[in-house]
């Protein structure tokens, strides 16, 4: 073995002699998922997520409680408002997903993964798993915030599970869209406005803050049918109310929201495949 005089020089042992081990897709998926989650614990991303949910609750509930609490049909404004807070929190989580996927694209680590023995869908699967982790945090914190201001599940465990399931499905749809925006723009700075502008405009022009009847006639059609409102209806129905005023958890109430969520996922997956193919 040659001894190099230069101290910083890597020794010949830099090149291992052992044969390559076989790779495992499950292990790769897990390693790539942990890679996304580890930094959230120390760079403030997790804290931001938690604080975000609290800020949405305080920011909507306190100022609007008197103003809009009086014109909504449910037993309390907390019961009416919490679905929107949940949706804003999981949307906020999807902004992080967009930022991370854009960062990966621009830093070239995706290129490196593609030249390694890793199945082409594994990095995406890991990003989605990490997104669902953020989504679960956002959902848990915002439901706890809702509970503090007076939100309750009135329809039993099954419907509460349905509430969680619908919220996670919507979270997955938003995360897919976020991931797509990140991949397509390859620009981390551009992802936040692209995600936040629709979040705020759809949030304000939705039935989450006040019933559709309180909007001017000309915009009522949009307010009622846009996805965020349909998701609010679905979540309000699954949470129920102490009165009979909550929407009934029937297919006609739930289906539009489900179709919006599944539709978003299908469109995002197709566009995702197209963006990836464009780069071949």
């Amino acid at each position: 073995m040659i001894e190099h005089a230069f101290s910083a020089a890597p020794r010949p042992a830099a090149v291992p002699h052992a044969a390559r081990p076989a790779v495992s897709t499950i292990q790769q998926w897990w390693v790539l998922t942990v890679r996304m989650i580890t930094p959230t614990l120390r760079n403030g991303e997790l804290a931001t997520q938690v604080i975000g949910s609290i800020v949405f609750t305080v920011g909507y509930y306190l100022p609007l409680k008197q103003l809009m609490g009086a014109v909504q049909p449910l037993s309390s404004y907390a019961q009416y408002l919490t679905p929107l807070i949940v949706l804003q929190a999981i949307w906020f989580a999807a902004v992080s997903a967009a930022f991370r996927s854009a960062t990966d694209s621009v830093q070239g680590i995706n290129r490196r993964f593609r030249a390694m023995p890793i199945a082409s869908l594994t990095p995406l699967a890991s990003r989605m798993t990490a997104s669902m982790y953020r989504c679960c945090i956002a959902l848990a914190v915002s439901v706890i915030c809702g509970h503090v201001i007076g939100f309750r599940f009135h329809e039993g465990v099954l419907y509460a599970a349905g509430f969680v399931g619908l919220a996670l499905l919507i979270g997955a749809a938003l995360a897919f869209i976020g991931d797509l925006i990140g991949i397509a723009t390859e620009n981390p700075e551009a992802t936040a406005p692209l995600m936040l502008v629709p979040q705020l405009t759809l949030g304000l022009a939705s039935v989450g803050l006040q019933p559709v009847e309180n909007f001017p006639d000309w915009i009522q059609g949009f307010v009622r049918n846009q996805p965020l409102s349909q998701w609010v209806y679905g979540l309000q129905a699954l949470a129920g109310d102490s009165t009979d005023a909550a929407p009934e958890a029937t297919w006609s109430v739930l289906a539009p929201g489900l179709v919006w969520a599944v539709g978003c996922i299908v469109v995002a997956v197709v566009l995702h495949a197209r963006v990836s193919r464009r780069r071949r």
Partner: protein
Amino acid sequence: MVSSDKAVIVDGIKKSFGEVAALRGVSFEVARGEVLGLLGPNGAGKTTTVNILATLVTPDSGRAVIAGHDVVSDPAGVRRSLMLTGQHVALDDLLTGRENLLMFGRLQGLKKKVARQRAQELLEQFDLVDAADRAVGNYSGGMKRRIDIACGLVVRPEVVFLDEPTTGLDPRSRQAIWELVTDFKEAGIATLLTTQYLEEADLLSDRIIVIDRGTVIAEGTADQLKERTGGTYCEIVPAQPRDIPAMARALGSLLPDTNRATLSEASDRISMPAPDGPKTLMQALHRLSEADIELMDIALRRPSLDEVFLALTGDGVRAGGQDRTDAFEAADAYA
């Protein structure tokens, strides 16, 4: 079947991006333990070539085989055999150096314990122990490049692509990477080196190919390429520049017409081919001293690889289409 001593076989690969022909039939081979320098101006097709060999881009036609695996029909086999490291460091900036090494070790199938062991070895070998537990985002350029390459060595590659590995590095880090290339050679790994530094290609490469406008325009050792662009020449500097015309007369048949034609009022020296090396120099010296011309300097020179490169590829302004290829390659590089 592929003969076992060739780690890389490239046979007439072509690739177009829309209207732009990035590669128009590129062929070369790299043996195990050999370093092949890949030179060419920006937009010549170097990055596209590397991307095709790394299975990032599919060729339109032609064949490329890496360590016995075809890039089109067996990309998985290719990916198991190669290490790709680029001028753009591709790591997770949010993770520490050690975490990056662990991640790549685990992605390559190492067990947790082995991956941890290997990470420690590589940190020591690449002189990064002190920085091991800092986020890579805070590393200096040289440290980033070292950890980037270390991440490619968690398991043994058969073929290494070094894409401008020392661009922007300080001399110390550059030296470390040069020594690493020697290690690859000793370990029997084939190395494909693209670089802008011709001195580096000259020093490290066993053979060099020059690509321009999507085709291989020259191939050989650095010496062969130098020979090809004129070989050794003799440079004569008079003490008084006004003696140049008298010198040209005195040299007579030694100075070919083409060299004579390049002389002007502003010339302060004469360059001419020296086909017989020192003998030509002696003859020139003899004739000039007979003509009683006082010299400041007379020497035999070999063209530098830079001159070879300019002679081979230099034809003035690049066509607009080349810049477009560049843009495509840049987009690819980040994909």
